[in-house]
């Protein structure tokens, strides 16, 4: 029996090396802005750290901390409370509130800020009515909370960001077997005790993850804090960079923000890992809902009604009214142009993100390895980086490249190429991809994970290489995931403000920047069509998320 076959070696061809290289390139490109900010802040052209410390930095930090604390408390109280009510008890309107409580997610914070300022400021309808009713003449005759303050900003942000906490808490409560709560009751703990000693601790990781998401959005916000003259770190970046013309100073403030971001990310990752131990593996029948007393039921309904009214119905109604009343003015103030800009950018970014994420996620699945997975994780950090920081991190290398290239061209050919990359749509798109890559990557990672490995192995033994398997097997099976990811990115790009403001080309506006311009100059009516479009588009992820929670809660995180 021959055991020694013909001599010779097979040609080395696994076809998978290209994926690894490509994946690394993508991950590095996306990580570039973050590295750039750190670089510039550490090696500034002029060192203004001492000056910053003496003057504005502490103020920025203090304000930011107060804002974050307020939003954290507010969003947790509202989010967890309503999630608990809606998941475990029965009261009038519960079925509607289940999905309605997520609606404020569709309204960007700055739009809510414009609406309520119009409504509640001295010259606004509410105070006019109050003065008429009580005969007050001037501001000295009565006290009315000033909406343009840190407190006002906290309220605005809480109203639009609590849905993050609500959604994740709801998922957590749904995943907890109702049996756990029933056991707790039979052991003598009343409903309040069960909540605080059993349900809440079990749900804590999800609550914390939701809270960190809300806080990241708080850090990121520019429209609201700018309008309210609340000096947060983001406002500081804009101020020092644009108004004072000091890029290094802006970068240094951005570095401080990155410190906050790192802490938030660490907190989120820690709790996500804990969540794996907290989530129960078995699926039980839903527990019987708690019956509440009549008065408690009214309180519950009211508690759920307030966030929905304040966070969505009032802003929505006002925007709708303005859009109808001022339709012509809105339209003629270049609304169609901006709408097209927004749609093109959002569509382009969505497609780009999904394509890149598919490549990277598949490369990680094919080759694995610490380097590639690590790079993918770094590339997924963009969602936590505030838009202003991102913009800095992009303009710096782009600007440096442009200057260097221009200098070289002038020396070699006597031709000035000017700005090639900075201030172009490419820069804006790059910012969107970096910021929203995590969305598509996370979705694709879990989508690919749901496909059985034997499926790919079968395709490979049937003669398809890695690329062929991706196109003939994986992608057709993930159509839903791809579409969802693209939609979520589309919506987020439409709402994005800080990075767009900083990076857009001259005379180029999106719906978001257009709403910002008119809103911040108190002419919101003229931009109401734009604002309304943004909110309508923002309803899409709310619907999608609702369907996901209803079908399979564990898919949400």
């Amino acid at each position, binding site marked *: 029996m021959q055991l020694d076959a*013909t001599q010779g070696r*097979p040609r080395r*061809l696994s076809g998978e090396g290209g994926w690894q290289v490509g994946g690394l390139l993508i991950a590095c490109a996306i990580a570039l802005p973050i590295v750039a900010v750190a670089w510039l802040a550490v090696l500034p052209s002029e060192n203004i750290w001492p000056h910053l410390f003496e003057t504005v930095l502490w103020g920025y930090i203090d304000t930011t901390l107060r804002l974050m604390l307020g939003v954290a408390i507010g969003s947790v109280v509202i989010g967890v409370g309503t999630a608990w009510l809606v998941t475990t008890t029965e009261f009038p309107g519960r079925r509607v509130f289940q999905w309605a409580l997520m609606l404020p997610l569709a309204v960007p914070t700055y739009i809510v800020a414009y609406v309520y300022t119009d409504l509640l400021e001295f010259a606004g309808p509410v105070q006019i009515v109050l003065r008429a009713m009580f005969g007050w003449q001037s501001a000295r005759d009565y006290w009315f909370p000033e909406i343009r303050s840190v407190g006002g900003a906290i309220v605005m942000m809480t109203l639009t960001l609590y849905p993050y906490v609500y959604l994740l808490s709801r998922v957590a409560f749904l995943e907890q077997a109702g049996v756990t709560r029933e056991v707790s009751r039979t052991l003598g703990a009343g409903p309040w005790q069960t909540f605080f000693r059993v349900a809440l601790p079990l749900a804590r990781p999800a609550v914390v993850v939701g809270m960190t998401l809300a806080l990241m959005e708080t850090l990121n916000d520019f429209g609201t804090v700018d309008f309210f003259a609340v000096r947060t770190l983001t406002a500081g970046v804009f101020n020092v960079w644009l108004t004072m013309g000091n890029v290094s100073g802006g970068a240094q403030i951005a570095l401080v923000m990155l410190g906050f971001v790192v802490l938030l990310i660490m907190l989120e990752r820690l709790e996500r890992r804990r969540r794996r131990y907290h989530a129960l593996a078995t699926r039980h029948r839903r527990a019987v809902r708690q019956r509440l007393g009549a008065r408690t039921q009214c309180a519950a309904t009211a508690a759920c009604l307030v966030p929905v009214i304040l966070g969505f119905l009032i802003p929505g109604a006002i925007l709708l009214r303005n859009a109808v009343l001022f339709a012509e003015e809105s339209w003629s103030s270049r609304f169609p142009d901006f709408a097209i800009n927004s749609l093109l950018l959002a569509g382009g970014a969505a497609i780009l993100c999904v394509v890149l994420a598919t490549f990277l996620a598949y490369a990680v699945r094919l080759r694995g390895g610490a380097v590639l997975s690590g790079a993918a994780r770094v590339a997924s950090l963009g969602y936590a980086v505030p838009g202003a920081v991102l913009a800095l991190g992009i303009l710096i290398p782009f600007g440096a490249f442009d200057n260097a290239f221009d200098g070289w061209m002038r020396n070699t050919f006597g031709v000035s190429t000017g700005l090639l990359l900075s201030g172009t749509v490419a820069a804006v798109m790059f910012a969107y991809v970096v910021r929203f890559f995590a969305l598509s990557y996370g979705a694709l990672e879990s989508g690919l994970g749901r496909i059985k490995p034997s499926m790919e192995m*079968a395709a*490979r*033994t049937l003669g398809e*290489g890695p690329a062929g398997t991706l196109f003939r*097997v994986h992608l*057709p*099976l993930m159509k839903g995931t791809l579409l969802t990811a693209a939609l979520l990115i589309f919506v987020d790009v439409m709402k994005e403000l800080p990075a767009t403001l900083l990076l857009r080309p001259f005379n180029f506006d999106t719906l978001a920047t257009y709403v910002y311009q008119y809103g911040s100059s108190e002419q919101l009516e003229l931009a109401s069509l734009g604002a309304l479009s943004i909110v309508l588009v923002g309803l899409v992820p709310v619907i999608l998320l609702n369907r996901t929670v209803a079908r399979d809660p564990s898919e949400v995180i």
Partner: protein
Amino acid sequence: MPDAPTPVLIFNDIRHRYGQTVAVDGLSMTVGEGEVVCLVGPSGCGKSTTLRLAAGLEELQHGRVSIGGQVVAADGCSLPPEDRNTGMVFQDFALFPHLKVIDNVMFGVRGKGVAEKRRRAERILDQVGMARYAQTFPHELSGGEQQRVALARALAPRPALMLMDEPFSGLDTQLRDSVRDDTLNILAEAGTPTLLVTHDPGEAMRMADRVAVMRAGGLAQVGPPAEIYGAPASLFVARFFGHVNALSGTVAAGSVDSPLGRLAVNLPELSGPVTIGIRNEALFLGQTGVPATVISARVLGPYSVVELALADHIKVWAHVPGTAPPGPDDKVNVDFDRAQAFVFAKE
């Protein structure tokens, strides 16, 4: 013995480890033209790894693999699975859920045009008896039907070698035998050499032309089923294919005295303390042999299992035919068929 068939798959001193764990340790074997070889062994013995190395789903670390006369993996270089011309059937069948049955089967067929591919797919579907399901989707089929489609899909591209990874363990027990027989017929008709991995010794005996018993990364014995069962090379192999009583004894002058009686040993290399393996069905109750007391007896259907106590508190089990075994504490005589008794060096 007839001439051994020309080898199609050759494993030459294969070694493979996952981190610190050695999965395959110096394995060499072949699968010849038209043969069905079953690779069988307990879980964790390395049989699935061996199969994956043949398919190219693992990178070969040491040794050489050749298929159809061409070296496909050697010295850290491996041909990827798509270039190896092997067909594989998986434990969970892995049918593509988004494709109809006919499209599943056409997936790997390389041909001039769609019409030609479709003809080939239809022909092979007919061979497995699934022609009328061509337009259905996999989730509408039963387990046995899915298995047949998986087989057709793997055979459609006319591979040089078939690899099967526990292809029947996903089926109902009652269904398995008929599906196994059908599969054997299809493979014989196609004439494709097959390496089938299973943890079920009965399946190996039923399906294989040759059985390769694996243990802890290496081969314990390779041979036709009759040889594996009738002349096991070790107690492990003997135990794997049936219940065996293991007794101790000492070889002296060409024979050994076991608690059940004397046994002639004509293997000169064996001497001193040995282990004697006697199959449960080799024992019979009657007039001859040694005295024993019945401890318990259970009727299992085809036979009854009787637990017996011999002198020196040694326990043996016997499989006796019939449904009326002796009762507890009965005194009987037990003897054994020398042809089903084996002597091994003490491990």
